[in-house]
């Protein structure tokens, strides 16, 4: 029996030792924990941030001997990156020290206690005064503290191919005033070149939040309720049952059923934007699409899909409202850098953040990635203003732009919107059915108190 006991004990010790190892290695790391982890997105088509962090890593390690910066790039679409980041926040072991954070998730993540409040640090950072008001607001949590610092912002415009439109008999510069003008253009292009894609409209869950920003919201915010079409700012409630929501879905339905856009199966590929930038526009096979102000970054020298002729062949204008009210619609978002609440070296993490967002590094990042600068000193730099021919046009859109409601349940609502557009584009639901399903989803997410019938 004693032998039995010993063998069993051995087995238990082996098992126990393994669990113990977990604790030990964690404890061991703590004592000389001078590793700073940085989590962000790097894909074949998005390398600007990787370039930035590689530079900052060297700079930072030189300035802080003994500290190693561990870059943890994730090659995934935005939505997958956000999911993995949220999952990793749940444990101090896995939470990165500094990370790339979408503005829409700041409030939710701050409420969950994943983000470090930066107020005390920012108060002592002299550059903070350079950041625009909008950029400062974007970093706020529900409690009024600042949790993230903006890397840059963006606007959305209607980008069109001058040769394709002219071949269809549409004079350029093209300035559509209503949705009907856009549909007329699509029809003209379809007639003149049946092989071309007249109007690509991002939609559905494949392209994630991009479907909303570069698609549905551009429509919704141009309906009767305008900036309050999604979220009623006065009551602080989500809008359900609105006519505008159905109208916008009907536009999606028209675009897909008339064959103006890429077929739904291709439009649902998360990488479809790569073929928009890399093939369709450069090859003269696409009339127009809604895309971000960062569009030129793919075509400039050193971009993922170099296309020097874009400066002459592309045009950009504001996307029109439904009936031509106002000067058009644009959406703004942007990403930030934040520090993890669980970071054991918050001082170093903030130092890294400020290095990445210094004037010099910001300038090269916003130029390479065609972002709209949020630092006044960067925005005034000639090299920024001249970085591509569209800087002026897309920066003007800041005047008419909209921001998404920054509530903590926004991301779930966004997913519900994506589901609605996907149901319509694939023909699984009519616009009315999809809108009704959306209303149900919203109510189950925010409760009956959180919605308002308009």
């Amino acid at each position, binding site marked *: 029996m004693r032998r*039995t006991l010993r063998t069993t004990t051995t087995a238990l010790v082996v098992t126990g030792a393994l669990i113990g190892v977990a604790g030990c290695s964690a404890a061991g790391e703590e004592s000389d924990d001078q590793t700073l982890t940085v989590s962000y997105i790097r894909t074949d088509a998005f390398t600007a941030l990787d370039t930035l962090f590689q530079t900052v890593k060297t700079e930072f390690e030189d300035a802080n001997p003994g500290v190693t910066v561990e870059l943890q790039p994730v*090659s995934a679409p935005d939505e997958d990156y956000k999911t993995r980041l949220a999952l990793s926040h749940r444990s101090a072991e896995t939470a990165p020290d500094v990370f790339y954070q979408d503005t829409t998730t700041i409030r939710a993540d701050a409420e969950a206690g994943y983000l470090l409040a930066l107020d005390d640090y920012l108060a002592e950072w002299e550059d903070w005064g350079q950041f625009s008001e909008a950029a400062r607001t974007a970093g706020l949590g529900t409690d009024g503290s600042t949790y993230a610092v903006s890397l840059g912002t963006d606007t959305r415009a209607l980008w069109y191919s001058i040769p394709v439109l002219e071949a269809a008999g549409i004079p350029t510069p093209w300035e559509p005033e209503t949705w009907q003008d856009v549909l007329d253009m699509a029809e003209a292009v379809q007639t003149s070149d049946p092989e071309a894609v007249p109007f690509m409209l991002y939609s559905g869950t494949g392209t994630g939040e991009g479907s909303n920003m570069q698609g549905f919201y551009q429509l919704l915010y141009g309906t009767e309720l305008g900036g309050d079409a999604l979220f009623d700012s006065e009551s602080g409630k989500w809008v359900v049952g609105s006519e505008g929501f159905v109208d916008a879905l009907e536009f999606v339905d028209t675009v897909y059923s008339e064959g103006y856009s890429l077929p739904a199966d291709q439009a649902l590929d998360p990488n479809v934007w790569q073929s928009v930038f890399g093939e369709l526009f450069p090859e003269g096979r696409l009339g127009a699409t809604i895309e971000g102000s960062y569009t030129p970054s793919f075509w400039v020298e050193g971009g993922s899909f170099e296309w020097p002729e874009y400066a002459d062949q592309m045009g950009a204008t504001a996307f029109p409202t439904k009936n031509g009210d106002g000067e058009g619609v644009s959406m703004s978002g942007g990403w930030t850098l934040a520090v993890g609440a669980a970071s054991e070296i918050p001082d170093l993490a903030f130092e890294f953040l400020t290095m990445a967002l210094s004037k010099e590094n910001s300038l090269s990042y916003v130029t390479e990635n065609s972002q709209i600068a949020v630092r006044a000193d960067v925005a005034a730099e000639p090299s920024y203003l001249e970085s591509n021919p569209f800087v002026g046009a897309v920066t003007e859109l800041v005047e008419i732009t909209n921001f998404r409601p920054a509530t903590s349940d926004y991301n779930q609502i966004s997913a519900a919107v994506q589901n609605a557009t996907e149901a319509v584009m694939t023909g699984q639901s009519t616009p009315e059915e999809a809108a009704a399903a959306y209303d149900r989803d919203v109510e189950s997410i925010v409760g009956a108190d959180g919605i308002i019938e308009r």
Partner: protein
Amino acid sequence: MTAAVARAPRPVSVASPRRSVSRGLSTAALVLVTAAFLLPLAWLLLAAFDARATYETRLPQELSLDNFAAVLTPQTTFVPLGNSLLLSTATAAITVLVALLAAYPLSRYRSRFHRGVMYGVLFGTCLPITAIMVPVYSLFVVLDLLDSMPGTILFLVASSLPMAVFMTKSFMDAVPVTLEEAAWIDGASAMRALRMIVVPLMRPGIAVVFVFVFLQAWGNFFVPFVLLYSPSKQPAATSIYTFFGQFGSIAYGQLAAFSLLYSLPVVILYILASRLIGGSFALAGSVKG
């Protein structure tokens, strides 16, 4: 034989062409099955050696090892494969050890308690592991085991344990008790009998269990996907996903090359195992209950 001929309504020679017809049909069917099962793999093999591969299956314009050269870096291949090896070996070794210890009393002593444990084990073999990944994630948050290699290994052990205990017990049941009884009379403890007599006699069975668990751990995607985060800890199953992204990025050739490198070890292991111990038969035999 003559009796059979006498009883048969027709001469037995008729059966011969009949048998060869059925043999021909069976062979033809299997050729068809083989083609259907190998067809999807053609893309994998061809694309890996095609520097400009797409999702199309085609002969490479020139055979190229560029894809392999591109992925054979520590970051892309060696670290993830090393992690896979660590994860699978540790999981298989611990599982076999724990299963042997557990199977011995279950095989040798009958009691209500053991019967209950056996029901529990059977129940465990039926548990859909993907069903519990969401709660497992929450549990690991509380236990502070996220991104922990040992934690992930122990979960993999626990999830393969029911099947392993079940298999080990069936192999052990086949070892006659009489040999141990002699040892007991000589004053050997149960554990000594297990180590000196039972284990050596059921080596092939142990190997089957080891290989079975190893293969499962090597190929598992969902468990490390939910539980491991640092790039330095990711096994090949999840690194392939984070490097190439969902639906692959444009580097189809590299994806195919890496897939081959990642699959090769288990294919070789499987072939070796089935050569050495008639693995497939033993494996299925122990499963069919």
